[in-house]
């Protein structure tokens, strides 16, 4: 009996929390549609998250080795600036493709 009551309470709580989500769907949101919307949201979040992860690692390597280069030879700092910024821009553009895809996915929700 007690288990039963806990289960009902949990389900009720979940419904209470998820009600804003369902409310936003409007009239068209069937049970099937809500699932695909959730998946789209998950995909958008994963896309930008993974891209930021990889881009962060790449940019970290680039920044680290260029700082090392400047520490060894401070005179080269001016010459390194343009290639460094360009390298960062190329790494970053891959992240931004993911950002744009996440953004496009968001408009599909």
């Amino acid at each position: 009996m007690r288990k039963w009551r806990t289960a009902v309470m949990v389900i009720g709580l979940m419904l209470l929390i998820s009600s804003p989500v369902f409310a936003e769907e409007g009239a068209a949101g069937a049970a099937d549609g809500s699932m695909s919307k959730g998946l789209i949201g998950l995909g958008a979040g994963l896309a930008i998250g993974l891209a930021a992860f990889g881009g962060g690692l790449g940019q970290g390597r680039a920044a680290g080795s260029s700082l090392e280069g400047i520490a060894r030879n401070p005179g080269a700092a001016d010459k390194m600036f343009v290639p460094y910024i360009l390298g960062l821009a190329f790494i970053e553009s891959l992240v931004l493709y993911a950002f744009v895809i996440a953004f496009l996915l968001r408009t599909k929700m």
Partner: protein
Amino acid sequence: MEHGFTWFSLLPFIADDPERQLIFTTIFIAAVLFIISAKVFNSIKKSPNPLIPQKKLSFQNFFELVIQATVNIMKDIIGHHAGKYLPLIGSLFIFILFCNLLGLIPGFLPPTSNLYTNGACAIIVFLYYNYQGFKEHGIKYLKHFAGPLIYLAPLMFVIEIISHLFRPFSLMVRLYGNISGDHAVLAIFSGLVPLVVPVIFLVLGLMVALIQAFVFATLSTVYIGLAVSHEH
């Protein structure tokens, strides 16, 4: 993206159409730049010795600084005849810089947070560097697409065409993503904490605006340099 209040929404004709507002903002920036540069041009023309810089900080000093820096970087990339390509690259740099900086003023949308504004700039760069390549090399410019070996040419041609077509696309998306992302971060944080905290993101936005305008100009220079370079 949804935007709150903007100053241009007070104007009658463009009030409820965000696209029209962006177009108007672009025209506004172009007009401001035109007026400033006309003023600077006049002041250089009137001064008895234009080589002596003005004493106080003025638009003339600003333009001299920006143009000198742009020419130096272009000479590093292309070579000594880089000044030929300054009109396009310099104008693009200053225009994009002002567009980006406008986004930092509350109540203004940066025009570069829209794909079409950036797309126009990127397509102009694409057409321009191909035109310059043809002008420099004639029909031999097509050799750039053919790769090192003649029997690989059909394969290389396809790959090169795709990679060249991808250049304006990546220019466009890079600027759009950076500026709209930066603007979104600024909007979210000034929504969360209206005081003091957004200052950090304004400083970050200043850096992003400068660096993205710089990256756009530098990449355009690199593309032009690749198109007009002679293999030694």
